């Protein structure tokens, strides 16, 4: 390339760059880190290195550049461009470039007067005062042998009647070691019995799931995620006399540490009109029928007049031979109109790839989730930014790939061995659970949001009022997407990367709420 062409290119790049001068910490980088990283990266939280001021962030500058460029951090596994889920922890390309340019320029601090304010991180519940608090009966001490530990704790609810649930908030006792938690309810006493069988330790170990039947699976916990609230008229029912089960994943840790976590439960203030049901896909045999029927019963899915799943098909028997990379295509046939709220894909250590999409009878496609690089440690229940309508006669397709070769460092066997379905670390799973309700016209326009009160602010100009000036600001930013240089996160009210009609609905609701 000739020098003149290079100069023109350099000039164009300089003009195109939003920080032609080279960004500074105070003016450009502090707001990115404080708003995306610090909620976990501060004292006592799971993020190991605190990132709460310039010195701490500069000391890890090269590492921060690396993990953001490779998108290892912030941790968010689903492909953001494929489908949108609430609470996505991702940086925009502009933000990643800003960090990179700042580090390349020698991470200058700049004018401290321009540093972004630190967000207010809640010290208690982010939802308010809970109606019921259930706490682990005693502290649990991990082994501290650098292995992951999956422990199920059984906590009696002592409920004398069924209660309708609006939100569930898991509160880790020791945020340094609690990696994630799954929550369910058991009315059979099975889990209680299992706990009694291991009197030497509190709770019992279970890798795959709860190791007991659950009538309801409630929203779980991953670090940095905010608890979601079920929309008006929609929720779960926590049965009377049920035991709450929490499966806590404790991260590998080299020394013993203790945890005593608790769960805040918020009851519905108005009655539920549509109880949340579950669709589960767990194909073990070629027609997928046997185990899936069993799981439907276990998950208490027989409500709303029975499951909306007419049948399940899988293209092969669920066996992964050694030294094979194997892909399964599973299809669910849906027999009535439903609205999906969330999706929970689950596989173990051989798992590499998840893709789920729906096709309606006309052949229209709705993308539900894609995870290109499955990571068991970052599994989660992903709530859609709005209800996903699935019409009667639709098919939900799941494509899953497993790597049972030595190229997969997580392979539990070396040399590899043939694996099939099971609950242990050395077994595999192909499980998809979706929350749904019977469809009602208009569902597709209802935004699902996180948090309550202060979580969403439409006071964009910060004058303490929600007024016409805020509306004008919102309109000016309408239509921007996350990779546009002028995109600003706080206008994207549901955090899905698009400032669009869904955000407008949220804006209007907040506005009319006064």
């Amino acid at each position, binding site marked *: 390339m000739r020098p003149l062409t290079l100069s023109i290119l350099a000039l164009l790049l300089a003009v195109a760059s939003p920080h032609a001068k080279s960004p500074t910490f105070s003016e450009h980088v502090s707001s990115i880190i404080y708003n995306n990283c610090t909620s976990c990266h501060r004292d006592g939280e799971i993020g*190991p*290195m*605190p990132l709460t001021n*310039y*010195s*701490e962030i*500069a*000391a*890890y*500058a*090269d*590492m921060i550049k*690396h*993990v953001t460029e*490779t998108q*290892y951090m912030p941790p968010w596994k689903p492909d953001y461009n494929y489908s949108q889920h609430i609470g996505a922890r991702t940086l925009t390309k502009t933000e990643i470039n800003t960090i990179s340019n700042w580090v390349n*320029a*020698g*991470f*200058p*601090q700049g004018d401290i007067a321009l540093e972004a304010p630190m967000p207010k991180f809640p010290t208690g519940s982010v939802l308010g005062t809970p109606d019921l608090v259930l706490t682990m009966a005693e502290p649990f001490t991990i082994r501290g*042998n*650098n292995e992951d530990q999956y422990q199920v704790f059984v906590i009696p609810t002592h409920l004398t009647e069924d209660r309708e649930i609006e939100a569930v908030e898991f509160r880790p006792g020791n945020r340094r070691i609690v990696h994630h938690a799954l929550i369910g309810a058991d009315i059979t006493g099975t889990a209680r019995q299992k706990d009694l069988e291991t009197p030497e330790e509190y709770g019992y170990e279970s890798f795959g799931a709860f190791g007991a039947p659950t009538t309801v699976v409630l929203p779980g916990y991953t670090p940095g995620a905010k608890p979601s609230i079920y929309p008006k008229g929609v929720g779960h029912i926590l049965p009377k006399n049920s035991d709450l089960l929490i499966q806590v994943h404790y991260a*590998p*840790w*080299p*020394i013993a540490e203790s945890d005593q976590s608790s769960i805040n439960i918020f009851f519905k203030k108005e009655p539920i009109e549509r109880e949340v049901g579950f669709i589960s896909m767990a194909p073990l045999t070629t027609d997928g029928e046997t185990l899936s029927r069993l799981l439907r019963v276990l998950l208490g899915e027989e409500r709303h007049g029975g499951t909306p799943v007419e049948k399940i098909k899988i293209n092969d028997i669920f066996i992964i031979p050694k030294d094979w990379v194997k892909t399964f295509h599973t299809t669910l046939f849906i027999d009535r109109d439903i609205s999906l709220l969330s999706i929970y894909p689950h596989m173990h*250590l051989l798992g590499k790839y998840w893709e789920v999409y729906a096709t309606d009878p006309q052949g229209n496609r709705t993308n539900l989730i894609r995870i290109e690089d499955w*990571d068991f*440690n970052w599994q989660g229940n992903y709530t859609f930014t709005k209800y996903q309508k699935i019409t009667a006669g639709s098919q939900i397709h799941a494509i899953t790939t497993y790597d049972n070769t030595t190229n997969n*460092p*997580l*392979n*539990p*066997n*070396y040399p590899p061995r043939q694996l099939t379905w099971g609950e242990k*670390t050395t077994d595999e799973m192909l499980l998809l659970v979706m929350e749904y309700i019977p469809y009602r016209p208009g569902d597709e326009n209802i935004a699902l949001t996180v948090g309550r009160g202060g979580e969403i602010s439409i006071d964009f100009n910060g004058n303490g009022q929600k007024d016409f000036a805020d509306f004008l600001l919102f309109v000016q930013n309408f239509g921007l997407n996350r990779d546009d240089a002028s995109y600003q996160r706080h206008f994207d009210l549901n955090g899905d990367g698009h400032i669009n009609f869904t955000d407008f609905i949220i804006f209007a609701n907040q506005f009319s709420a006064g």
Partner: protein
Amino acid sequence: MNWRYNITAITIAFFLFSGSGLCASYKIYIFMGETCPVSRHYTLTLKELHAQYASEKLEFIGVFPNRLSTPATIAAFKEKYALPFTCIGDSTHTWVNRLGATITPEVVVADTSHTAIYRGRIDNTFADLGKRRRVITENDLADVLNALKDEKPPAFRQTRAIGCIITSWQNTKD
């Protein structure tokens, strides 16, 4: 020059001269970060390796290169994870530059003239950040220490350490 740099200088001088005369002695420098999770993870392995191999001729030394490392943060880390070897600060990156470390944790096995015979990972637990092998198949540091124990120093070898990048801050503009 404040007291901290004096102490660093004395520490460096001590380690520069303490090994002279023992031509078959080696030091195992382990670059670590108090807040680096991969460093924390390896404390267990390092304790086991130390118990198995440390001797008068094989000395383990923890080196802490984070710019915010202080004698207090190093002492707290050493105590919490019960590290049985000497730990020194290197926030000025004297040892980082001398031995060519770029990651925590990364080990450099060197003779008394600071000629490295091994630089890199402790073992292959991590295939990448967050990718923890369930079955460890390469024990690189143990292999080097076994060879040294048998007085058969291997030819120089380097592997890629996985962990936290040591921020090079000489050019910082703050």
